[in-house]
């Protein structure tokens, strides 16, 4: 990962700590020293389970939560603690598609107004904006008269199309997609994934694609980062992480995924039960070592006390695990 000069987005040692409700309670570390970068036109997938901090990473990049440590560079400028004015400038190149297409569109505004808002913020003149909105609507496959309608008149898939159109309005170079298809039905999910892939290719966009499902990320992303309890466990080519994961947590995640093929699924189940493991429900105990330590089938004494850092395991893959640390 030496192409830092070319990186569109560069995140270094990002940490986000939330003060929990109650003065005496311990603050919660949602993101703990995460680093990654995204090149122009590249899609990075971030995969993790609930509470892994994957969405917090996305929200930090978007300026919706305040990092407690680390640095974020977007197109070369430091946006870590960007103020309102700087964020508005950044907004010309960075936009977002959220998971829930119901809450992400204001029910009281017409589709036209919703699509105009990013342009208003960038002070685009009215006529240009109107023209642009007409094109956006067509780009995402909605009927032209949609601009006069309201969000409640659209289904989930259609709303997500509107959200995508809004994200495209400013012609960004990076779109953050926070679980954009998790709330949709399978047949609609495929339509939206295709739409995202199409616009990405057409406009040469970079994407940060957050998901809880390895298979969808494999389908969309070039590279995948697997996060667990606020830390990156493994990062590398999406196909490799899906088919041949290295980190014990990635292995567990991949083994637990269900496949719609009964024979294959039976084999996978058998393989999974072969892994010695503690139940996934067990919450990780506070530790100075590896966050996955308490659930890891391959844990060593060192894992409890020494926190592994990301190291090169193969040409393209980095893993935060002592198993691989020793090899290098």
């Amino acid at each position, binding site marked *: 990962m030496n192409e830092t000069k070319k990186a569109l987005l560069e995140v270094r040692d990002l940490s986000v700590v939330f003060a929990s409700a109650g003065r005496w309670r311990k603050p919660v570390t949602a993101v703990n020293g995460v680093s990654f970068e995204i090149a122009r036109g590249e899609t990075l997938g971030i995969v993790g*389970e609930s509470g892994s901090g994957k969405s917090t990473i996305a929200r930090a990049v*978007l300026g919706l939560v305040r990092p407690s440590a680390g640095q974020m560079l977007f197109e070369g400028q430091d946006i870590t603690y960007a103020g309102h004015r700087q964020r*508005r400038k950044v907004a010309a190149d960075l936009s977002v598609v959220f*998971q829930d297409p119901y809450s992400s569109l204001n029910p009281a505004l017409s589709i036209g107004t919703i699509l105009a808002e990013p342009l208003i913020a960038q002070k685009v003149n009215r006529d240009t904006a109107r023209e642009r909105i007409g094109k956006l609507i067509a780009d995402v496959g909605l009927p032209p008269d949609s601009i006069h309608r309201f969000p409640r*008149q659209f*289904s989930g898939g259609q709303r997500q199309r509107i959200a995508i159109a809004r994200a495209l309005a400013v012609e960004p170079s990076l779109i953050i997609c926070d679980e954009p298809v998790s709330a949709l039905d*399978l*047949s609609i999910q495929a339509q939206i994934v295709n739409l995202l892939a199409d616009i990405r290719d057409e406009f040469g966009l970079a994407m940060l694609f957050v998901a809880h499902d390895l298979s969808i990320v494999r*389908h969309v992303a070039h590279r995948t980062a697997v996060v667990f309890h606020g830390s990156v466990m493994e990062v590398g080519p999406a196909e490799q992480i899906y088919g041949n994961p290295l980190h014990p947590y990635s292995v567990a995640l991949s083994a*637990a995924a269900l496949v719609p093929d009964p024979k294959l699924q039976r084999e996978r189940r058998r393989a999974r039960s072969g892994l010695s493991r503690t139940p996934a429900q067990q919450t990780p105990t506070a530790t100075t070592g590896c966050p996955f330590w308490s659930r890891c089938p391959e844990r060593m004494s060192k894992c409890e006390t020494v926190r592994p850092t990301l190291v090169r395991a193969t040409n393209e893959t980095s893993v935060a695990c002592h198993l691989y640390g020793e090899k290098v």
Partner: protein
Amino acid sequence: MITWKRLTVGLRRPMAVACLLVLGTLVIAAVLAKWIAPDDPYQQDLSNVLSGPSAAHWLGTDELGRDILSRLIYGARLSLFAGLLCIAVAVLLGVTAGVLAGFFAGRVMILFDRVTDLLLATPVIMILLTVLAVFGPNMNAAMIALGVMLSADFMRLSRGSTLEARSALYVDAAQVFGLSRTRILLRHIVPNVLGPVIVRASTLFGAALFIEAGLSFIGLGARPPTPTWGSMVAAAGNAIYKQPWYLVPTGGIIVLTVLASNLFGDTLLDATVDGAARARPRRWSRLKKQRQATVVSATAVKTPAGNAKSDETLRAPAAVFERDARQAGEGEGPKTGLLSVSGLEVSFPSADGWRPVVTDVGFEVPHRGSLGIVGESGSGKTITMLALLGLVPSPGKVTAGKIFFNGRELDPSRPSSFNVVRGSEIGFVAQEPMVSLDPVFTVGAQLAEPMRHRGRMSSRAAHGRVLELLDLVGMPDPRRAAASYPHELSGGMAQRVAIALALGLEPKLLVADEPTTALDVTVQADILDLFRSLQEQLSMSMVIVTHDFGVLADSCDSALVMYAGEVVEQGPVDEVLSAPAMPYTAGLLRSNPYSAVALGRLPVITGSVPDPGAWPSGCRFQARCAVATPECAEGSIPLTTVTSHRRARCVRVTEAVRS
């Protein structure tokens, strides 16, 4: 949340209009008192004191022979102004402070909390008495003071709705897109705050009026002979032995005013609540909101063709019913399996009569068998499952069909006939463990309840059994689990508890509604393992409702694929998944990202599931089907036998399987 839009809907209700008319008339009468009042309110007539209603004095005369109606009209000036002044102060102060506190949050919030605490703990009446002592009998000063104290209420309210609006993703989006704070506040936040504020203001207007009238009543208002509503009630009280009638108009006017403003607020609130309830769809599944949109979009977006067809769909169920009656006539009595369902139809009332949302559903579950009902939202899978439990949500009902369970017939149109089997013979596990357990009872108390009441166990025996059950479902520390509340458990643990609840009375059939959808991947695998081992240990049958073919492949031996309210394919899971007979099943399996090529396009099914009102005649999938022929639109398509134990609802079944 009371949105601006829903509020305007409420404003159009007749009751709201009536209330506004009453209040408006009062205000106009007060303003135009000089011209409207029939008499001079100060004109005494000692020869005609305390008279009842008469032609000269419509509402009678008071203790000094003054015209009561005129005095009430003049009194309205003071009372209404006092109420409005108080509410204006309270709303301006409270809403401004509340919205700012909610929007900027942080330390400001703590300060506001302290100020509201202070204002809410202050003895209102003492402050008012003090203010009246300080400023003399000046009701305006007292009402401003009252407004300041009531502003605490609006502060809390508007801060709450600001926080709620602020947590909406569309506000996050507005921030990301770089909109100015002013625009975010005015376009995205304030409209959400105004609704609840208006509702509350109309209630508190009544309260302010009470206090104003009360203070005047005890003689702290405007000095006599100025007419005030409160002092007139007091005068009526003094004359209670001589002329009880006097009480009627004086109190009546206060009741009328306050009632109008209370009813106004209540109607608006009702409209918003009803609006939410009406928008809530009739089907139950993963994302309730999602369907809320689809239902509306169906009526709004669908072409008139959809309406033309609704007649046909209305006629269709009758035909289905006849056919089923015939079928049932042939094979009278229970069949071999544990559960047998045939010709099931569930309907909901719509503008044009009962509209079926699920039609002609039939299947069997053998002893120790496991059936997966799979489909997207809108397929009717959840309604089918609820019909099995006799829990079709009102106002829906089962309009046709037969259910045989464990050798007895249950009447699906009579939900109470399921009372005997629910819990004891059929257990149920819901989708989201966190909301499917009662948050205010401990796990132990909830698990023990069916055992004690249905199983007639002693409390000690039930407790012992609870611990056994919690151990059975793999809780690491049953004793601690029994003593904890649902919110103290993780999602996976809560789902284990929910499973234990369903197993309490050792049912023969376990019905699970998307039991792993809300869980993480690794937890999902553990829960499915648990289901499988429990099924073996307790030799139960299972019905799992899911949208996930992976769950089907993992945990079921037969599959029932549903689309738009009907069964489109059924058979052993291995065969259905390896060689789907229906283009819909095949399409869904292809668009599963698992099987697709990385970075390629996913094969898709275009369009979306039609809503019950918009089902076409013939095959309901035809509009989205890549291989549809004109034949597909001709009459209802029956379930065709594919192989000995497989059936599919498609005119091209044989071709599909051959290819």
